[in-house]
């Protein structure tokens, strides 16, 4: 059947299993919106800003594991998506972005609302396409979804000129994709896998270091099984939180700049570091020369460029981490006689780690007069549902959430790790709530980041998305203030927000509910009431203004040089 390009796009999305798109109309996507008007299989969520639309698609993807889809018009609509795309790119989140473009005949003429969005986004997309002929459209969409979700996932952009949306052709969706330059290695080398297990069984002080790659590959079950069978402690990056249950006896929590004392000590003393789906980011390693100084390193990752990028690696395994972990577990089981001996051998190591845990547990100083942010996070964990999804913005509250919430399942913690995008939290939570209408979705943000995308309150109310918004309000851009306190002689240059905002009135202006806690004994009641109240709720917590995120490894220092909480 002959169809126009706009309709073909929607048919392709449907065949890719897309039931929700986040988008914002405009002149060069009006034909897509006209088709969408009567296309009942796809739900459209209208954000109030294209950046938020992409973050919402991103949150949807992180929470559900499916490809998120966002639409924006040409020019400013497209350029507004850039921060969202870069955020997804840094955290390897599968997205397909569709941007309108001026008619092909006008491209390059500085037409109204023209921007070279393929050029602008080239460094922050996994790949991009400009559709020049409607006959290529279906194959391009098929490729875009395949590229976005396979290998190391990432955002793919399709720039879609208006005249191509109008042009008609016979619609046929290709059955298969074959891209000669793109063949991700999914099956790890069997000999390397055997060697890895051998190295593990020979180690005396092993640590498993897990990144977001395990969550992206849906490999949490395999990770937990492997770590428990071998009895090896596990530390995770920010992006890896939830891949391994934070309350497990083998869990060391997060490592790195704001990681736990015991995770950083373990990594600094280990003789074998097994890195899985992680990329040795500078926030994790601190000073690279002194990172894991005594360790042999095994690095398992689907992306060969991650391996040996920042650190030397003794044994690389390129492959899908779920696939590799499954094989490693099998090889381990074949040597089950050796496992008991190995576990006896590493028992002193586990005791050493327990010693560090006792010496400096993850803690904070309580207060009876002022709300400690860590208390709010602990109460949120205590009072929320076990399967609650928690999104964060970026800054101090993000680290407090990472440190004190104790995530136990994959895809329950949504945060901008790589790019560190303020304004991410609220729209990401919105996307997660769209993916899981029945689950509790909470966003923790600071007063600064909340204001970067607060217009999305309108989208939440309009689409009946009951996201529970916790604002840890210290009236500061807290993380920068903390750096100014610690490293710039308390010169608080432009980090005090000065103007106190009435967040209750703000919530009410959007038709949502606003609650406030000013004293520690009010925290629990506010959270309980917020969770019980239908619809979106803002819970504002007036927190200790100069509370710091600790422990902290100053930027560029070794992991053992921690500033501790005591």
């Amino acid at each position: 059947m002959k169809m126009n390009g706009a309709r073909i796009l929607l048919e392709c999305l449907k065949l890719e299993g897309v039931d929700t798109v986040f988008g914002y109309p405009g002149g060069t996507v009006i034909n897509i919106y006209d088709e969408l008007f009567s296309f009942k299989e796809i739900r459209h969520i209208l954000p109030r800003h294209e950046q938020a639309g992409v973050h919402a698609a991103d949150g949807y993807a992180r929470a559900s594991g499916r490809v998120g889809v966002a639409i924006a018009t040409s020019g400013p609509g497209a350029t507004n998506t850039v921060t969202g795309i870069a955020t997804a790119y840094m955290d390897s989140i599968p997205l397909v972005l569709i941007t309108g473009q001026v008619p092909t005949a006008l491209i390059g003429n500085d037409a109204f609302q023209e921007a070279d969005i393929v050029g602008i986004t080239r460094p922050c997309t996994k790949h991009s396409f400009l559709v020049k002929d409607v006959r290529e459209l279906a194959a391009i969409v098929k490729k875009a979804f395949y590229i976005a979700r396979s290998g190391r996932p990432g955002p793919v952009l399709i720039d879609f000129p208006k005249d191509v949306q109008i042009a008609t052709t016979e619609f046929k969706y290709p059955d298969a994709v074959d891209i000669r330059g793109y063949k991700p290695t999914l099956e790890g080398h069997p000999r390397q896998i055997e060697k890895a297990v051998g190295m593990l069984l020979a180690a005396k002080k092993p640590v498993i270091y897990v990144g977001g790659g395990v969550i992206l590959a849906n490999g949490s079950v395999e990770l937990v099984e492997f770590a428990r069978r071998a009895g090896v402690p596990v530390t995770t990056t920010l992006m890896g939180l939830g891949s391994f249950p934070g309350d497990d006896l083998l869990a060391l929590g997060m490592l790195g700049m704001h990681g736990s004392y015991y995770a950083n000590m373990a990594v600094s003393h280990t003789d074998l570091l097994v890195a899985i789906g992680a990329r040795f980011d500078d926030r994790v390693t601190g000073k690279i020369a002194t990172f894991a100084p005594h360790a042999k390193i095994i690095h398992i990752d689907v992306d060969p460029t991650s391996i040996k990028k920042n650190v030397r690696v003794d044994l690389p395994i390129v492959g899908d981490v779920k696939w590799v972990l499954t094989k490693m577990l099998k090889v381990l089981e074949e040597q089950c006689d050796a496992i008991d001996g190995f576990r006896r051998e590493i028992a002193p190591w586990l005791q050493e780690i327990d010693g560090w845990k006792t010496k400096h547990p993850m803690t904070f100083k309580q207060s009876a007069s002022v709300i400690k942010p860590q208390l709010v996070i602990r109460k949120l964990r205590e009072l929320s549902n076990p399967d609650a999804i928690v999104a964060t913005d970026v800054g101090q509250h993000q680290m407090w959430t990472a440190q004190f919430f104790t995530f136990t399942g994959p895809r329950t913690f949504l945060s901008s790790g790589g790019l560190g995008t303020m304004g991410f939290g609220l729209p990401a939570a919105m996307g997660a709530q769209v993916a899981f209408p029945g689950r509790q979705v909470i966003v923790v943000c600071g007063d600064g980041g909340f204001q970067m995308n607060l217009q999305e309150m309108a989208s939440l109310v309009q689409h009946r998305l009951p996201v529970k918004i916790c604002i840890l309000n210290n009236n500061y851009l807290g993380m920068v203030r903390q750096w100014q306190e610690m490293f710039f002689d308390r010169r608080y240059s432009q980090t005090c927000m000065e103007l106190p905002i009435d967040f209750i009135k703000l919530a009410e202006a959007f038709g949502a509910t606003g609650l406030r806690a000013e004293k520690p004994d009010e925290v629990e009641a506010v959270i309980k009431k917020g969770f019980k109240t239908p619809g979106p709720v803002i819970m504002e917590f007036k927190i200790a203004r100069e509370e710091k995120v600790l422990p902290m490894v100053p930027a560029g220092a070794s992991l053992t040089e921690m500033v501790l909480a005591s």
Partner: protein
Amino acid sequence: MRHTITVLVENEFGVLSRVSGLFSGRGFNIDSLSVAPTNEESISRMTIVTRGDDQILEQITKQLNKLIDVIKVIDFTDESAIEREMALIKVTAEDESRAEVLRIVDIFRAKIIDVTPRSYTIEATGSPSKIDAILELMRPLGLKELVRTGPAAIGRGSKGWKG
């Protein structure tokens, strides 16, 4: 260390900017880059000369391979490839230097492709070091203009890569 890398890419618009953007975005050097279609219409071949230690070269080849439009990357090191480049050289040639230019051209088996009473334009082909050598001799005579293509490289031996 100097490396010559051959990159086979999809012959599509925007591929060159993906490759060059990768080099600039990640702080890798490009000494020279040449690109043209191959025997197979849908494939273009780039020859890139770059510098870096082993770790950087490993990243460069891995990052190139990661680009969707890149089909194959070959990192030629040491003597595994034959490299040729062409230079067009406009040199001052007046009175006594006219004969000297001709002698150099002859020694290097280059060609004069344009003549005026005050200059010669020379076409020279050869390995990059041969081009360097001819330029060194021409420079004192008065080099007016120089165009180098950058090298093209092909592997030694009977094995070929189609396209």
